[in-house]
């Protein structure tokens, strides 16, 4: 377990770092996939196989592909962070450092539980029931939103004057 956690942390944070530091946006996208997979691994570790599988399916399978398509269609690859102005570095770097410091000091102050309660045997079934009983309304709202996003994205991405 600690070993798995370590490997996943390496993958996740390494991937995220790669996203930020890669000069090629395509590389960023693949680093992003690494981070996504790492997060999915955490979900498995935490007993949420369903969410983990969905994470792989949606993020690694769909979102990442969308990103790659967008990169290739907009034909811009180089994006080095190193070329930004010192002021920008100071502003953003300071902000990030400040946030990290704030979060980590707060995390340290609190005694967190270390023992995971035994995972429910029918985790996926539980999720299904929860989705269709107490969470039906948000579920339906999300489905409507997805439909709206689908139509919206289609309209936006269609060529001007849309043939057919």
């Amino acid at each position, binding site marked *: 377990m600690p*070993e798995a956690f370590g490997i996943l942390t390496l993958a996740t944070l390494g991937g995220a770092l790669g996203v930020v530091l890669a000069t*090629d946006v*395509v*590389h960023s996208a*693949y680093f992003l*996939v690494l981070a996504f*997979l790492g997060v999915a691994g955490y979900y498995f570790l935490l007993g949420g*196989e*369903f969410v983990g*599988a*969905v994470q*792989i*399916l949606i993020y*690694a*399978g*769909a979102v*990442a*592909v969308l990103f*790659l*398509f967008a990169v*290739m269609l907009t034909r811009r690859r180089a994006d080095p962070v190193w070329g930004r102005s010192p002021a920008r570095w100071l502003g953003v770097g300071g902000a990030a450092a400040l946030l990290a410091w704030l979060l980590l000091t707060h995390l340290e102050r609190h005694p967190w539980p270390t023992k995971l309660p035994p995972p429910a045997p*029918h*985790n*996926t079934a539980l999720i299904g029931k929860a989705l269709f009983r107490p969470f039906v309304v948000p579920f339906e709202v999300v489905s409507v939103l997805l439909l709206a996003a689908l139509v919206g994205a289609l309209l936006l991405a269609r060529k001007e004057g849309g043939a057919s």
Partner: protein
Amino acid sequence: MGQPYLRLAAAALILAAFVLGTAAFLVWFERKLLGRMQVRPGPNRVGPGGLLQPVADILKLTVKEDILPEHADRPLFRLAPLMAFVPAFAAFVVLPFGPGLVSADLNIGLLWILAVSTVSVLALIAAGWASNSKYALLGGMRAAAQMISYEVPLVLSLIGVVLAAGSLRLGRIVAAQAHLWFAVPQVLGFIVYLIAATAESNRSPFDLPEGESELVAGFHTEYSGVRFAFFFLAEYSYVFLAAAIATLAFLGGWSGPFLPPVVWFLVKTYAVIFFIIWLRATLPRIRIDQLLSFGWKVLLPLSLVNIFLVGLFRFI
């Protein structure tokens, strides 16, 4: 502490051997079958009935010069074949060959296979992109478009099975077919699945990403040697995987009289593989726009009808 990892490593090793062996065998199987269907002998020089032909091929590929195209995106170029193979391998992990004969019996097995296999799109795009060649890039993009399009009917056709079995665990799905194979009540879903799975694994008549007459060899045009072998391996792994899922989800899995379950499983799987190869030998390649509109306008509605019917019958 070391115990579970040791077991994991052993399972992985066995699986890897099996995947490699299966892929190699499939290469021979397909070539031989295609040859017979086209009234020619097929491979017949190396070993009995040409059975050792794949071994020779692999030896040849490993010793071949590894060519890196100029201006290629080196890290991605090197990574792409692995990316293609690893998801296939990961999918095998949850595949049950018989009762209890499974590396990791996840309770979301089917979903896991679906999720993991989508990741292989990334490999095709990476290969196409990194080769810095327009044929490769076009092939990669086509592959991505095709796989994303057929992912939808594929998943939807399996939802009917999940609904009927009430579980995502592959073992349970097989058990639910003790009396009747799902292929019978859900014949619509079965057909949709077969077509979509064939398209998913980029096989003829849906082999547009590597259509020789248009794109040379598609996304792996620039690949040679071991890297090419990996793509080859991955493709045949997917064929096996697709057939195995068809067996598990629609054809009653390993259940059958007299023979041991593993044999039944392999027999059914190879029957499906035989059918897929038969398709390749029979049908011409279709056009890209036909491909996409067929997926969205025919398969998708059909799979939805299937789900509706299953729900209706369960409700009754």
